[in-house]
């Protein structure tokens, strides 16, 4: 039983530290075994093919043995073919669609229904995306699996794509994207309309090459569905591995096993993705942020002057916290503090933990108990340190009871049930719910109401605010949650940030009013367009 005593509490952090170090090392080692994007993982994988009596060809491709070797996971497989003796592999229509049609853990099965007349060769690609990679970063893994003996069919449709009568102007425009990270280009082309139902274009397969002469290969996101109406240009954001020139071509595929048409790239010199150092579309956010920082620094300087007084309006919900703690002390019951159920990196959880420090200090001064049930283990660990610091700041470190900060469960309703159990068993006189809450908010608040506790809640989660307002005595709405910590300390430096935010809010209101008036007076004017472009550059 010695392990369970508090003096051995340090074993937990040591254990966690060791596991963290081991996990990080394992991640680093695994990362070194991942093949670079675009490189074959299993060059010599053999594929089998069977010709069925109805002239269909079944192609069985062994699944890549490297599927789970590192952090790369193969997400899909793609098959292309070429007539024997020709250079280029080309996508072709499948019936059924070219997704996995068998969930055999050992192989992927494709069916070619076209029964080509000439000998054909197939190539299969395993396409994956690197796990944990940021969205849009290159993570394409290409695995070549060639058939050793090309198959010669005896009947059926010819293999060589006949295609539509595509006019000479039909091509693909590929351009770098402004404000990009250097791994994307924008691909734009007019959709094709086939002459009959058999040649209706279902999807477009985008192929990429690092050389103008190929080979052109598929990649993650290669398949672009044809637009329903067929009238608008098809625009697709395409990932490229690096900032070297790349060439693209688009193959239109329909129900017919043969490719309907191939669209070449308009610019034969290729396209290079451009990495920029500042995203101009976020200029408005940058201006607001710089203004906030500048105003904060100005107000901090003003606060240093003797006699300076930063006025912050009274917030009854915050004023009630000390009163509620006093009530709990008089009744000889604990205070319950729930810091929300979100992860520690959420700003509402961070704000709640900052407030927890102030509340702990008050609780310690009143010499009462504070119970902190947590949904996330990391929040529980930080919360314990915060409460400990609060008791230390109040000059009562010995009164701190570490087991009062406990992790209940990471499951939403299991946590809710556990916290309700604490409320009903320990009967806290004061419940404080500050942080990010979801559906459990009303269950917690109503249980506290039934328990006749004073309840103070605060969240920036708009959908939960009505529940707290209905069931709690005081509710801190949105920005008030973020003001609590500064409000409680009355530290001029902290109040400066509130003051700066208030000024920015006034500025935002002004911009909204002016924009609304301008848009109302002259809806289509250049000024209106400029304002809208600045406020919402993505549109």
């Amino acid at each position, binding site marked *: 039983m010695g392990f369970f005593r508090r003096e051995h509490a340090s074993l937990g952090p040591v254990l966690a530290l060791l596991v963290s170090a081991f996990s990080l090392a394992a991640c680093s080692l695994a990362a070194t075994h991942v093949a670079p994007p675009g490189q074959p993982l299993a060059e010599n994988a053999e594929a089998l093919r069977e010709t069925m009596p109805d002239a269909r060809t079944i192609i069985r491709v062994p699944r890549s043995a490297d599927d789970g070797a590192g952090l790369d996971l193969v997400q899909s497989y793609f098959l292309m073919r070429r007539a024997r003796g020709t250079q280029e592999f080309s996508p072709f229509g499948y019936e059924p669609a070219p997704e996995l049609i068998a969930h055999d853990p050992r192989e992927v099965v494709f069916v070619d229904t076209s029964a080509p007349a000439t000998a054909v060769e197939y190539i299969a690609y395993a396409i994956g995306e690197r796990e944990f990679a940021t969205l849009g970063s290159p993570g394409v893994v290409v695995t070549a699996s060639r058939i050793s003996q090309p198959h010669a069919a005896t009947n059926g449709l010819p293999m060589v794509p006949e295609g539509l009568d595509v006019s000479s102007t039909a091509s693909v425009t590929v351009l770098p994207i402004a404000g990009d990270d250097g791994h994307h280009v924008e691909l734009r082309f007019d959709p094709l309309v086939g002459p009959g139902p058999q040649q209706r274009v279902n999807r477009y397969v985008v192929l990429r090459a690092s050389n103008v002469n190929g080979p052109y290969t598929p990649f993650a996101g290669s398949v672009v569905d044809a637009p329903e109406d067929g009238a608008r240009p098809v625009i697709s954001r395409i990932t490229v591995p690096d900032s070297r020139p790349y060439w693209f071509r688009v193959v239109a595929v329909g129900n017919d096993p043969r490719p309907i048409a191939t669209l070449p790239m308009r610019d034969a010199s290729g396209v290079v993705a451009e990495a920029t150092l500042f995203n101009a579309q976020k200029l408005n956010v940058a201006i607001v942020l710089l203004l906030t920082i500048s105003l904060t620094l100005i107000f901090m300087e003003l606060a240093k002057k003797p006699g300076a007084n930063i006025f912050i309006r009274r917030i009854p919900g915050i004023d009630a916290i000390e009163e509620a703690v006093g009530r709990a002390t008089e009744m000889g019951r604990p205070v319950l503090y729930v810091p929300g159920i979100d992860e520690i990196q959420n700003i509402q959880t961070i704000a709640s933990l*900052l407030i927890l420090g102030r509340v702990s200090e008050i609780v310690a001064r009143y010499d009462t108990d504070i119970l902190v049930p947590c949904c996330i283990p990391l929040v529980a660990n930080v919360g314990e340190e915060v409460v400990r610091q609060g008791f230390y700041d109040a000059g009562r470190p010995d009164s701190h009871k570490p087991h009062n900060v406990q992790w209940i469960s990471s*499951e939403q309703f299991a946590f809710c*049930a556990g916290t309700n159990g604490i409320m009903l068993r320990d009967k806290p006189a004061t419940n404080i719910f500050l942080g990010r809450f979801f559906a459990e908010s009303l269950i917690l608040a109503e249980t506290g109401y039934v328990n006749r506790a004073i309840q103070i809640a605060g969240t920036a989660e708009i959908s939960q605010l009505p529940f707290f307002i209905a069931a709690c005595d005081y509710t801190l709405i949105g920005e008030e949650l973020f003001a609590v910590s500064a409000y409680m300390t009355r530290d001029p430096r902290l109040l400066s940030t509130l003051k700066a935010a208030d000024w920015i809010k006034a500025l935002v209101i002004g911009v909204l009013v002016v924009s609304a008036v301008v848009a109302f007076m002259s809806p289509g004017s250049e000024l209106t367009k400029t304002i809208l472009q600045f406020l919402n550059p993505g549109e």
Partner: protein
Amino acid sequence: MRTTLPLLITFVLGVFFVAEFFIPHAGIHGTVSLLQEWGAVLAASAFILGGVNVIQVNIPKIARREKDWLYKVVLIVSAFTMIVAGIINREEGGLYNYVYTYVYTPSSATMFALLSFFIASAAFRAFRARNAEATLMLVAAIVVMLGVIPLGEWLHPTFFPLLKDWILEYANNAGRRAILIGAALGAVATGLRVILGLERSHLGSD
């Protein structure tokens, strides 16, 4: 040192992540991905601390036969059983999946279902016309309710649905957006306080 180093790390990483928001360059994204991987690993490792916390909170209470100690026995036994079952077999049809599907999921659904009763009791209290604001809210709530139930359409086919849409689209949306803007600026202010080291209570004891 114990305060200065965390403050320095917070400042450097805070500024880095703010800059990353504006800099789309892939080099920055690579570093962010790496840091996020570290964060995910550390967060996962915190479950060990959580497990230790559960044991340290509950076992002594069982040993001392404190009030409701039997509940804690159930907790520890359940947790231990699920850990062992999860390690041995997480396949379909195994004990772990069986308990999750047939014990946890219905229990969780039951907790969620309780919400409807809590909504009814909370709405009853909230909609009492104690003053002008509460009366306004009561009237708005009745209109919105009539706008979505068949009775409202029966009373008048278009009036209540249109009025409901107007209340939700304009009055309600205006309030929601005001709260959102305020909360976003509050979040920026809180972030600044932490990055600049003005807030320190989260750094723990010296």
